[in-house]
C-alpha cells in the first residue's frame, strides 16, 4: 500500500514513473528488503533465532511497537508531536485495571472504556493545542507530566494485579500459524487505518489539514476540529497499546512505559519515521510503520541473542534512527533529481 499523498505535477507531466518503479523505489519495499535481509542474516548465525518461541516473542513485540508507532503517526499527520503517548497509554491501562478490578466491569465494557478514556485524554491535548496556538511539543510536554502525575497520585503507584486470567491468556495466545494474536490485532488496525486515511472523509481531511492547514481551511475544512480528532485518535491508539502491554504482562503496572511514559518515545518515532511518515505532516505510511517496527525488533532480537551486550542496543537503535532519516533524505534527493517524485 502506497503512502497516501497527491501525485506531483512533474511526475504527471513527464508521464510519471511506472507503477513497478514506484513500488520498487518506495520506502515500504526498501524496508521489506531490509527486514528480510536482517532476518536471514541473524537466522543463519543464531540457532535459537528462528525457534517457534523466538518468532512468537518477536512477533508479539512487533505488534506492540507497531501500535505505539501508529499512535504517534496519527499526530505526525498534523505536523505536530505528542510526547504524552506513553503517559496516555499507561493511564488508560490503569483505568482499565480500575474498571475491571474495582468496578467489576466485564472485559467487553472495560476495553472500549479504556479506549474512550485514551481518546478523551488525546482530545484534551488537541483542544489545548488548537485553542492556545502553542506548539504541540510544549503542550504535550506539560500534559505528559500532568497525566502521569495524576495517574500515579490516584493509584499510589500500585499495580492492578487481580485482573481476570483471560487478559494474560490473550497475551500468550497463538494463532494457527504460531504468530501472536497481538501482532494480528496490530495488522488489522493497520488495514483499518489505511482504509480510513484513503477512503473516509475525515481521514482525507486529516491529511489535507496536515499538509497545508491554510489551504484546507479555505476549502472549507474545519482544521481546528480535525486536529482535535487527530489527537483523539492518537490517544485511543495509545490506549490500545497500553492494553496490549497489559495483556502481555498480565497486570496493569504503572511503570510499563517508564518514568512519565518517556520510554515509548523512541519506538513511537522510530517506527513511523522509518516507515516513511513525514514529520512535516500531510502524509502517512501506515504499513511502513508496521515494517519499521518489524525492522527495529528483528535487529534488537538479533543483537540481544548475539550477546553483543544488551547495553549497546540503545546506541544501535539511535544510530538506526539517524541512518534511517539520513537515508530517507538521500533517497528523496536522488529521486527528485531523477524526476521520479
Amino acid at each position, binding site marked *: 500500500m502506497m503512502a497516501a499523498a497527491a501525485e506531483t505535477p512533474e511526475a504527471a507531466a513527464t508521464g510519471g514513473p511506472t507503477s513497478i518503479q514506484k513500488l520498487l523505489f518506495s520506502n515500504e519495499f526498501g524496508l521489506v528488503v531490509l527486514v528480510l535481509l536482517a532476518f536471514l542474516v541473524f537466522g543463519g*548465525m*543464531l*540457532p*535459537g*533465532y528462528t*525457534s517457534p*518461541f*523466538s518468532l512468537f*516473542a518477536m512477533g508479539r*513485540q512487533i505488534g506492540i511497537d507497531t501500535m505505539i508507532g501508529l499512535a504517534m503517526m496519527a499526530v505526525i499527520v498534523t505536523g505536530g508531536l505528542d510526547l504524552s503517548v506513553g503517559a496516555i497509554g499507561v493511564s488508560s491501562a490503569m483505568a482499565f485495571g480500575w474498571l475491571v478490578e474495582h468496578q467489576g466491569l466485564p472485559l467487553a465494557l472495560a476495553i472500549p472504556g479504556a479506549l474512550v478514556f485514551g481518546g478523551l485524554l488525546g482530545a484534551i491535548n488537541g483542544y489545548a493545542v488548537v485553542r492556545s496556538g502553542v506548539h504541540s511539543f510544549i503542550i504535550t510536554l506539560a500534559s505528559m507530566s500532568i497525566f502521569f502525575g495524576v495517574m500515579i497520585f490516584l493509584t499510589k*503507584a500500585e*499495580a492492578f*494485579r487481580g485482573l481476570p486470567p483471560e487478559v*494474560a491468556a490473550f*497475551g*500468550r495466545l497463538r494463532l494457527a500459524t504460531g504468530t501472536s494474536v497481538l501482532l494480528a490485532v496490530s495488522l488489522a488496525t493497520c488495514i483499518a487505518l489505511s482504509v480510513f486515511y484513503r477512503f473516509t472523509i475525515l481521514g482525507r481531511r486529516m491529511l489535507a489539514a496536515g499538509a497545508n492547514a491554510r489551504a484546507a481551511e479555505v476549502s472549507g475544512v474545519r482544521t481546528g476540529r480535525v486536529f482535535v480528532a487527530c489527537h483523539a485518535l492518537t490517544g485511543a491508539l495509545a490506549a490500545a497499546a497500553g492494553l496490549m*502491554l497489559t495483556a*502481555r*504482562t*498480565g*497486570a496493569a*503496572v*504503572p*511503570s*510499563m512505559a*517508564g518514568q512519565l511514559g518517556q*520510554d515509548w518515545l523512541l519506538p513511537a518515532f522510530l517506527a513511523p519515521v522509518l516507515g516513511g511518515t513525514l514529520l512535516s505532516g500531510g502524509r502517512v505510511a501506515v504499513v511502513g510503520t508496521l515494517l519499521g517496527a518489524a525492522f527495529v525488533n528483528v535487529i534488537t*532480537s538479533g543483537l*540481544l*541473542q*548475539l*550477546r*553483543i551486550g*544488551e*547495553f549497546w*542496543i*540503545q546506541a544501535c537503535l539511535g544510530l538506526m534512527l539517524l541512518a534511517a532519516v539520513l537515508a530517507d533524505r538521500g533517497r528523496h534527493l536522488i529521486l527528485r533529481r531523477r524526476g521520479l517524485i
Partner: protein
Amino acid sequence: MTNALLRFALPAVAATLISGAAAADSGTKVALVPGGPHPYFAAWEQAGKDAVKDFGLGAADYRVPQKWELATQSQLLESLLSQGYNSFLIFPGDAVGTTPVVQEIVDNGGQALALAGCLKDPTPALFCMGTDVGRSAYLGTKELIKAMGGKGRIAHFTGFLVDPNTQLRIDAVQKAADETNGAVKVVQVIADIDAPQPAEEKINAYLAAHGSEVDGIVTTAWVPAVTAANALRKIGDKRIKMVGIDHDQVVLQAIKDGFVNGTMLQNPYGQGYVGSYVLDKLRSGCTLKADAPWKSNALTKKFVDSGTVFVDASEVDTYVDAMRGITKTLKADFDKDFLSCK
C-alpha cells in the same frame, strides 16, 4: 569492515558450537537476571562464576536488563530462553507481572526460582529465596531503637515503590516501632529514592528541614543508606543514630567512623551461589521434599530465608566471613531439609 565482520562472526560461530556442545552434554545453563542495574546484584556475577567452577555447570551467567523496567526484563528473559538457557534465577521486575514470562519459561521446558524478591502465589516459579526483608527491616529497626535508648522519632528511607520488597519493609519498620507502645514513632517515610539524584535531594532536604526533630534513621535500601551516611558525615552529626543496609564501602567506613551505628547485611552472594546449586541438582534428578520447612511471607508460601545479620563497628572488618558462614549454612540446610536425591 572485515574486522567488524570477524568480531561478530567469530563469537557467533563459537556460540553456535558451544550451544551445540551444551546440548550434547545437557549441561545446566543458569541465567541470573536482576530487575535492573543495581549495585546489590553485583555479587551475583561472582557467585555464578564460582558455582560453575565448584559444581561443573554448563554456564551461570549474570545478565542485566538495561533499565528497571518490566518489559525490558521480560524481553531479556525471552531472549535468554531462545538462546538455550534452561535455569533461571530471577529478581521479579514485578511481583505479578513477571509471572507470565516465567510461565513461558516453564512451558518451554525450563525452570525458575525467584531470587531476592518473590513472585506472588500462584506462580510457576519453584520457590522464592531471599532475605526475609520484613524480618531484616524489623531487626534493624529494633537495633536502632536500642541505640536510641528506647525512645524518640525515626525517619525511614527506602527503595523503589515498584520493588515488591518495599511495602514489606515499610510495614516491618512500623511494626517494630509500634511494639514500643508509643515510645518510638515513625515520623516520616521517604520511598522511591533508590537512585542517587532523588536520594540526594530528598534526604538533604529532609535533614535540612527536620534534622533537629529526628533521633534515628533507618534505611532499607542500598542507595539511601549510602546517601544518608554521607549526609550525616557532611553535617558532622553523631547525635542521630542510623542503621543502614547492605555492605557499600561508604556505609562500612561510616560505621567505623561512628556516624552510622550498624548495617543489616543481606546475602546476595549466597543467593546466587546456592540458587545455581539447587537448580542444577533439580535438573539432575533431585526433587524438592514435600514436607520441606518452607516459610511464608506476604507474597508466597514457599519461601527460604537466605540469611541476614546485623553488623556494628566491632564486626565491620570481618563481615565477609560472616556472609560466607551464612552461605555455607544455607547450602547445608538445602541438602538436609529441602532436596531429596536418589
